[in-house]
Every structure is written in C-alpha cells, then in structure tokens.
C-alpha cells in the first residue's frame, strides 16, 4: 500500500493529467451537441457490431433449436396449407391408427370467430354438415393441444364449445402412467393458458412437468397432447386429487383447427347405449 502511494505521488503529474483529461473529455462530450451525437453514434456502432459478432456465435449455438423450430414452423405451414386447400375442396386427411385399427379422419377448418374473454367461450368454424361435421365431434389444434367439441352445426358453419367453457369436460390421462382424470377449465379461472385436471384418484402421484394427454375414451383420439402440469396434487374436498396445468393450445392465436371424425363413433354410441348403467 505504501509503495502504491509512493508510486502515485512520484508520477502524480501523470495521474493528475489522466484525471483532468477525463474530466475535460467528459465536459466536452456532455455539453456539446455535436460531439455528443458523434460519440453516441459511434458507440452505438460499436455496440451494434459487437452484438452482431455475438449473434454469429449465438446462431451456431442455437442451430439445433432453430432447426427444431423451423421444422415446427414447416409443419404448421403445411397444416395451414392443408387448411387453405380444404377451404374449397374439403379434403379429408386420413390418419390410420394401426394399433387399434381404428380410423380417424381430420378435417382442417378455419376459425372465423373466436372468443377467449368470456366465461363460456364459443368459436365458429367454416365447415358444416356439407363437410360431414356432426355435433359432438372433437376439435384439436394444428400443432398440439385440444380445442373442444362441435356444438351446433349448420350447412356450412359450425360452432365449437371450446375448452374455455364451463360445461366442457375432456377425458385425459397422465402420459406416464395412464391415470385417468377429466380436464376442465375450472371455476373462477379466467386464464386462457391454464386448466385443471380433476378427479384424479388419490393414490396417483403427480409431479410438476408431467405431460397430460387425451385418454381416447371420448371422441378424442388417444394421445393428443394437452398440456404440462404446473401445480400438482391440489387437494380437493372429495376423494380425488386435482392438478393445474399449462395448456399447449394457444387459444388467442388459433387460426386453424382440425375436426376429428371418428368413423366408429356412431357404432360405439349405439353399442354402449344397450348396456344400461346401474343394471
């Protein structure tokens, strides 16, 4: 420390010079509009070029992620293209479920009216009975996530009772252990990104981050991604657990949806109506 002081006092001319010089430059740049603008511009240039360099590195680091997002974007564009072509031709997209040998067909439809702010939200799509849509069909989002059920159908249009509706209930399971539950938007919940899984049996262990998929018991095909659990094991008054989850579906930006046609829906309904409950 003493040596430092000796050093500084020995070369005090230089250190004083540095101090006064900096003060002078500061005054110059601060008080003269022209000098200030030059300084700001050049420093912006320096900052900008530095960021540009950094970006080049970042681009390399993020290449995998960018690839994934591009692939996702591609898939989205393809599905949108499908929607565009089906506006006129109402072309069915066939998905062959080879495991259960059950055949679902997806029909792309354009959302022409959407609502997300109400307690009970109803959407309208541009497909109707002409395109083979019936009440009760499941509707899913293009990338992932569920949307709701077909409610009323006219010749060329149909309304969807979306998940953001107090009467909508979708049968879901936890992807990891197939534990059943039912998906509802929830009372007093007005967040369009959140929903609740109710009626999960008490012995099921749920964790934050678990993926929830559709069960396939209702009109939804099995395994459609619904969301990720954000708050697990919310205790309720009954004998069941409930969980809060973040939906994959972004209802606010929904442009196209897929209506799921289940060829065996009528058959299933007819068969199940024979067996009377509580018999």
């Amino acid at each position, binding site marked *: 420390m003493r040596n430092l002081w000796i050093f500084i006092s020995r070369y*005090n*001319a*230089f250190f*004083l*010079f540095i101090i*006064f*010089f900096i*003060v*002078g*430059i*500061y*005054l*110059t*740049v*601060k*008080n*003269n509009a*022209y*000098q200030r603008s*030059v*300084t700001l511009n050049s420093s912006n240039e320096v900052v900008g070029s530095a960021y540009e360099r950094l970006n080049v590195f970042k681009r390399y680091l993020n290449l995998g992620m960018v690839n994934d997002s591009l692939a996702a974007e591609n898939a989205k564009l393809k599905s949108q293209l499908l929607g565009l072509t089906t506006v006129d031709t109402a072309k069915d997209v066939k998905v062959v479920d080879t495991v259960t040998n059950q055949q679902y067909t997806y029909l792309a439809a354009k959302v022409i009216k959407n609502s997300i702010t109400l307690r009970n939200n109803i959407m309208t799509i541009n497909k109707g009975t002409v395109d083979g849509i019936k009440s009760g069909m499941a509707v899913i989002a293009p990338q992932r996530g569920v949307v709701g059920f077909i409610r009323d159908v006219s010749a060329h249009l149909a309304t969807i009772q979306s998940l953001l509706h107090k009467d909508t209930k979708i049968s879901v399971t936890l992807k990891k252990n197939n534990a059943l539950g039912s998906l509802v938007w929830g009372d007093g919940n007005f967040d369009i990104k959140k929903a609740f899984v109710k009626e999960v049996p008490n012995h099921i262990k749920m964790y934050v981050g678990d993926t929830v998929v559709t069960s396939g018991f209702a009109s939804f095909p099995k395994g459609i991604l619904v969301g990720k659990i954000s708050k697990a094991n919310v205790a309720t008054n009954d004998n069941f657990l409930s969980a809060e989850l973040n939906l994959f579906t972004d209802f606010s930006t929904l442009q196209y949806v897929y209506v799921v046609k289940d060829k065996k829906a009528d058959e299933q309904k007819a068969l199940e109506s024979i067996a009377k409950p509580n018999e």
Partner: protein
Amino acid sequence: MNSRIIIINVIRWFLLLFVQIFLLKNMGFYDLSTPFIYVLFLLLLPFGIPNILLYLLAFGTGLTLDAFYDTMGVHATACVVLAFVRISFISISLNRDAIDDPEPSLSYMGFQWFSLYAFLCVATHHLVLFFLETFRLTEVGYTLMRCGLSCIFTLLIILLVEFIFYRRTPR
C-alpha cells in the same frame, strides 16, 4: 517576491485572456489559422508551481476560454494536455535541483530552449484542441493543416511577445 510573482501572473492572465477573447477571437485566416495566445500564460507559470495547482490553473483557464468560445470542455482538455507536456518536458530537459530561474521565459532560458519548449506545448495543445473540435478522423488532413498553420501563427505571436518583453538578465 512571492506576491510579486502572483500579481504578475494574475495581470498576465487577464491581459492574455482579454487579448485572446476580444481581439484574436475575431481574427483568423480563412478559418485555417487561428492563434491561441492565451497558452503563453500556462507556459510562463513559475517553475516551482505544484503539479496540482498547475493542472487546476490550466483547467480553469481552459474553462474560461470555453465559456467565451461556447465549446465546453474543449479548451480545458487541451490545456490539461499542455500542462502535462510542460511538466514532462521540464523534468526531462532540466535538472530539477539546478533550476534557479523563476520562470521558463525567453529572457531566462534562451531562445533555443524556449522555442522548443513553446513549440512542443503549443503543438500538442493545438492538436488536441482541433481534433476535439472536429471530433472525427475523416477530415484528418484538413484538421492537421488547420492545426499546423494555427501552431505557426501562435508560435510567431508568442515569440513576438517574448521578444517585446525581453529583459536582459544575467544568466
């Protein structure tokens, strides 16, 4: 003796700044050559002055000039640089213990030493001054020309003044 030096320097300060602000400020050859005679005050400050006082005086003088020239900080910075050059040059060229002259003027130090001293100080002062004023390197040729011509002008006037007030003193 001591108070005499202070009074002389104060008078010199007022006189030089008066000349600079009210006469030389309006002079200039096509914006190429503008003399800055006020640096003579800093050149002629006595040898024994402490560094901190020298810097403060340089900074204050520069700020005063800035106030009249509406170039806040430009002259102050240039004067600080001049002070640094002055300290460095004196400590390099003269033996600190052997200095018995009161001030580094032409009368005491002789033409050769004084002209080199004045040239170095004035040149760096003008370089800093003009480059801070321009504040860009694209017009470097023009700036250097202005700097060089002004430097010659200033040096001429400084030497003129020094010869006018030349006192033959025993060296």
